[in-house]
């Protein structure tokens, strides 16, 4: 990229150069250039990621581990190298601490099934009301299977975990076996004090699971600093492909867990009357893994590392600040979640009300925005209990990544004003 548009200058990143790596960003939608503000839903992919996948499939494809010929060795080498890259990216102690799954949801279900195998009535599992469905339903199903009780953190008016209430209620106590919390809320943008809650959990002997789906893609990650025992995240939100996610776990913890899915590659010795299982991570990777997808995720991690996660985070702060300021000046917008940048990620959700007091439904907001090329998400964002808690059914969400520009944010703000007029009878 040679031309640097004024709107694409950021203090932290050369956004124009970044954008030139993402072919989709040059697309037209409805006859206008795309402004993609739905990265919390799924991120776009740089050409390097897609090329890594294509090259692998077209030049080095074979099954891993079990195939030992030249192509098999190449495929295995590429797959395990990707594991090492992902491990380094989150600060894991060793590559074997990374279990590849199909997405964050599988990672959280894997955590629920293996950690929860021995749960009994009376045991308690703690989540929060701001969780994504993928960090609620697996624990509900676990509670149903075992008779354990599911409890949850409430939130404050500002959209932060209500620690005072949790303390007053004795939410985390000697009956608590598992605490599972999102690092960054996919709706409110709140960054939770995970390390502090991990301290509470560990003090009562509970295991701390962290849903890093919205954290790992946007913030420098150190599993040690997070204080987590298990950390789930997903490839497609961090510039990687679909079809791959990961569960990081402390090695000794992983080594103590029973298997989850059974099949090829997760075994040690199979006899018809009983089997023994491989050590982690393979114990948890039944069947042919997402090989090309791991290679793609490895390339995504390389790309992010080259940008620098500090720079990515700083850039997203700039975008978020611009967005928060703009929204606060747009009539009819009610912001959900923290209004300032302290402990705040880049997902910004809001509702929109017309001048005649009519709340525009987020699907209709989304549709009007889409007609102007602006892609956002409208709905409950897989966080229906949070919306219930906020007393609303749905909201509209704008979210960013390394390639997002303030010009795109401005187009969103313009389109919101248009939408408000459209539904407010001013058309």
């Amino acid at each position, binding site marked *: 990229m040679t031309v640097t548009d004024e709107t694409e200058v950021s203090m932290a990143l050369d956004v124009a150069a970044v954008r030139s790596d993402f072919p989709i960003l040059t697309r037209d939608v409805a006859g206008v250039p795309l402004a993609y503000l739905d990265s919390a839903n799924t991120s776009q992919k740089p050409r390097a990621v897609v090329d890594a996948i294509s090259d692998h499939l077209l030049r080095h494809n074979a099954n891993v581990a079990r195939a030992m010929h030249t192509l098999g060795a190449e495929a295995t080498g590429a797959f395990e190298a990707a594991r090492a890259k992902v491990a380094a990216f989150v600060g894991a102690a060793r590559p074997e601490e990374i279990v590849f799954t199909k997405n964050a949801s599988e990672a959280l279900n894997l955590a629920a099934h293996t950690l929860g195998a021995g749960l009994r009535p009376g045991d308690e599992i703690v989540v929060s009301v701001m969780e994504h469905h993928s960090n609620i339903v697996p624990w509900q199903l676990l509670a149903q299977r075992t008779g354990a009780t599911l409890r949850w953190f409430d939130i404050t008016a500002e959209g932060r975990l209500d620690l005072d209430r949790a303390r007053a209620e004795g939410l985390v106590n000697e009956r608590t076996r598992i605490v599972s919390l999102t690092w960054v809320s996919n709706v409110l943008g709140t960054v939770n004090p995970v390390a502090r809650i991990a301290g509470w959990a560990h003090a009562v002997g509970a295991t701390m699971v962290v849903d890093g789906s919205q954290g790992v893609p946007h913030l420098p990650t150190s599993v040690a600093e997070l204080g987590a025992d298990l950390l789930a995240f997903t490839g497609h939100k961090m510039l990687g492909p679909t079809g791959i996610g990961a569960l990081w776990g402390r090695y000794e913890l992983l080594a103590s867990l029973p298997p989850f899915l059974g099949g090829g590659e997760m075994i040690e010795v199979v006899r018809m009357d009983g089997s023994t299982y491989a050590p982690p991570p393979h114990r948890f990777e039944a069947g042919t893994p997402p090989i090309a997808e791991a290679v793609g995720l490895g390339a995504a991690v390389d790309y992010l590392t080259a940008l620098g996660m500090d720079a990515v985070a700083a850039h997203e702060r700039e975008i978020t600040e611009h967005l928060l300021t703009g929204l606060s000046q747009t009539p009819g917008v009610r912001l959900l979640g923290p209004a300032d940048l302290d402990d705040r990620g880049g997902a910004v959700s809001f509702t929109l009300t017309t001048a005649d007091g009519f709340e525009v*439904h987020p699907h209709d907001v989304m549709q009007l925005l889409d*007609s102007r090329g602006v892609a956002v998400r409208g709905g409950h964002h897989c966080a229906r209990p949070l919306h219930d808690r906020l007393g609303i059914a749905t909201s509209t969400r704008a979210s960013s990544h390394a390639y997002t520009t303030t010009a795109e944010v401005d187009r969103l703000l313009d389109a919101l004003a248009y939408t408000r007029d459209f*539904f407010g009878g001013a058309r």
Partner: protein
Amino acid sequence: MSMEQLYQDIILEHYKLKSHSGRREPFGAEVHHVNPSCGDEVTLRVDLADGRVRDVSYDGVGCAISQASTSIMSDLVIGQPVADALRLHDEFLALMQSQGKSEPDEDVLGDAVAFVGVSQLPARVKCALLGWSAFKDATLRATAEEDE
């Protein structure tokens, strides 16, 4: 397609009007339908008598498309013979599945022709169908009740 074509005036009117909303007695069947991906919901009641749709009432949350469609639907079917109302459902379903390729007949579909633009947006078709599907479901249940 412009937004004015998609959200025709009649749709915006019904969105705010919500004809026949607010659940009423008596009713032969009540159903609850949800679009899980978007969170739109409708709880809808149908009252049948003498082979006709005597009343339709509902409470719903959802987008302009789903709310207006339910409102227009209730205007169209109330008072109709059950068979005609169900035929209307099928006509509307066919229109929604036409991917913008059909010329809806206003003589048959009345105000529901306004949703022709929606049929070009696969993601929104479910919105337009929510109330209609609930109506069909409730009607079949109410018919089954009557038969017993």
